[in-house]
């Protein structure tokens, strides 16, 4: 199968959906001629024109609000938010307006919009350009949240998001834009709420999101060489969450680590761990472990930044200890 980069996958998804449905448009800063600083949208303005690939002033709350109103009245905006850290600027329009409109109107109004943004540290971009803030939006009912882990998911989840009649927030890992993966020609749609078992194993379950899927797979490789077979699962969407697949794996392996690049405390690892503990409790041989990003603002210095996020070695080490039956904490 052909391989394309995550960046190309996003670009294809947008182009295909814009061809299919003329109410779809893109809006954000420097999305047209520049194709964004990450060059993910290159070529789209040439095909669809500036009426559908709309450059905005640097006014995130404003164009987010505009997108909500546009979505309510018959279009399908795909909002480009240049850095996930700018989510803080659009939270009101996203969470007070977009997320609640369908409910508050008793089902009469809908807000079919997609907010594309990114996450991920280790680019030496410091504390305001490195955050992974998906937990914040996952907490707000009315939003769906997708975390593609490869070019395939980036394409399939984005296309599904655009066709969804609800507001969807999709986080791409900005370090993965040039990563290639096999993506079939033709229609690729990945349904929401279906986790992907990336690798089967019997000894331990590693649940990873976004780029942490790669980290889990690398850890599984390390472990396999030592005779420990890890199952690696990518939830793909955290709202809705495919609890059934996660629980089935937890019941099978009896040991689970949840790995995510958001801050660990009050983030998504807590939720996933709590659900598994709650519903697979009697099958677990050890507590569900969590590995998130360190609870510190992301430091600029490379010497510090690299140690704030989970690594394959770190995951493998925790997995070993769980499998060996070591109690990680004096529980």
């Amino acid at each position: 199968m052909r391989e394309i980069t995550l960046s190309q996958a996003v670009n294809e998804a947008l182009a295909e959906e814009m061809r299919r449905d003329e109410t779809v448009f893109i809006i954000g800063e420097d999305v047209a001629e520049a194709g964004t600083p990450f060059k993910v949208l290159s070529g789209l303005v040439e095909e669809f024109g500036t009426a559908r690939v709309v450059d905005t002033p640097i006014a995130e709350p404003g164009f987010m609000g505009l997108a909500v109103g546009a979505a309510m009245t018959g279009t399908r905006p795909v909002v480009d938010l240049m850095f996930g850290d700018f989510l803080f600027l659009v939270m009101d329009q996203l969470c007070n307006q977009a997320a609640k409109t369908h409910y508050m109107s008793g089902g009469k109004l809908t807000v079919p919009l997609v907010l594309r943004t990114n996450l991920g540290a280790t680019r030496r971009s410091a504390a305001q350009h490195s955050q992974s803030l998906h937990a914040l939006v996952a907490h707000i009912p009315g939003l769906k949240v997708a975390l593609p882990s490869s070019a395939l998911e980036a394409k399939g989840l984005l296309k599904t998001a655009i066709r969804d009649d609800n507001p969807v927030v999709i986080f791409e890992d900005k370090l993965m834009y040039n990563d290639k993966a096999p993506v079939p020609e033709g229609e690729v749609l990945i349904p929401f709420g279906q986790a992907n078992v990336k690798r089967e194993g019997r000894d331990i379950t590693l649940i990873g999101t976004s780029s942490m899927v790669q980290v889990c797979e690398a850890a599984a490789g390390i472990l396999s060489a030592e005779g420990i077979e890890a199952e690696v699962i990518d939830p793909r969407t955290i709202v809705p969450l495919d609890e059934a697949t996660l629980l089935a794996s937890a019941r099978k392996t009896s040991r689970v680590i949840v790995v995510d690049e958001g801050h660990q405390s009050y983030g998504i690892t807590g939720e996933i761990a709590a659900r598994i503990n709650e519903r697979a409790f009697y099958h677990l041989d050890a507590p569900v472990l969590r590995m998130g990003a360190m609870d510190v603002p992301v430091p600029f210095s490379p010497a510090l930044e690299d140690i704030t996020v989970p690594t394959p070695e770190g995951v493998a080490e925790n997995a070993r200890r769980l499998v060996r039956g070591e109690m990680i904490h004096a529980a």
Partner: protein
Amino acid sequence: MAEARTNTEDYLRMYRQMVRIRTFEDNANQLYLSAKMPGLTHMYSGEEAVAVGICEALKVADKITSTHRGHGHCVAKGAAFREMFCELLGKEEGYCRGKGGSMHIADQSNGNLGANAIVGGSMGIATGSAFTARMLGRDDVTVCFFGDGATAQGLMYEVMNMAALWKLPVIYACENNGYSEYTRTDEIAAGSITARAEAFGIEAHQVDGQDVLAVNALTQDLVARARRGEGPFFIELMTYRYHGHHVGDINREYYRAKAEEQEWKETRDPITRFRGWLVEEGIASEDEIEAMNEEIRADAKAAVDYALAAKYPDTSEVDMHVYKGVTHALA
């Protein structure tokens, strides 16, 4: 006012709509005072000429966005008493199935995209609605209602900038009633409100918001021009609210004098004024007007009675309409 006789129907409809708003609010106030209405609400009484003068210049397909003080806009854009009272009482037959209440009342069938409990929260939505019209080649115009207090929200400047750059068919209608909550406008608004719009290259007007014909004439003109792509426009409507900021705001002499309220009611009431003019011009007799008032009062009473007796939504509705396409979000 030379054309008075030729527009008899329009004039009578304007009068009727103003009285319908006043009557609606009197009933809502009574419901609150007699503890039959849940929560609290913000009365539009005194500002009727604004909503009616503007909405009478709009077609059904034109859109409005409304505010926390939204009953007047809702009635003026064509809503029915029964569904409105049902909504205020949290009943299933309300416009939003009881899920929105006073602060989120919406009436999609008449182009009312909804009240908003975030001050300034609908400015992006209105601008986005105008964006849709332009993108899809529709000729509808959107009016964004908001108060003088909302001019302090940065969102307004962000979306005015985009509306001006892209010549969107939106009219920003600032209902300057002299107060935001318990504070006089001059204490919270520096400089000039219309100059702020003008600085973005937006044509701005100030108009007596107690004169329904003046409001209507100006709006007719601006709507026609906006339809032709000459928008956006800004109108500052000088008006007054008769009640407290919300229904519980009774002792308000610390922020405004009773005499001031009295003066507005006695000398500038939009209904009294217009009624006098209608009689003077021979468009309607006192008797005809009294009959109209009586009919509206009876309508309102019937709607209130209906709503009081109507049933609440079934508790199974609680997780419906969280997501379009998902019957029960928590099932």
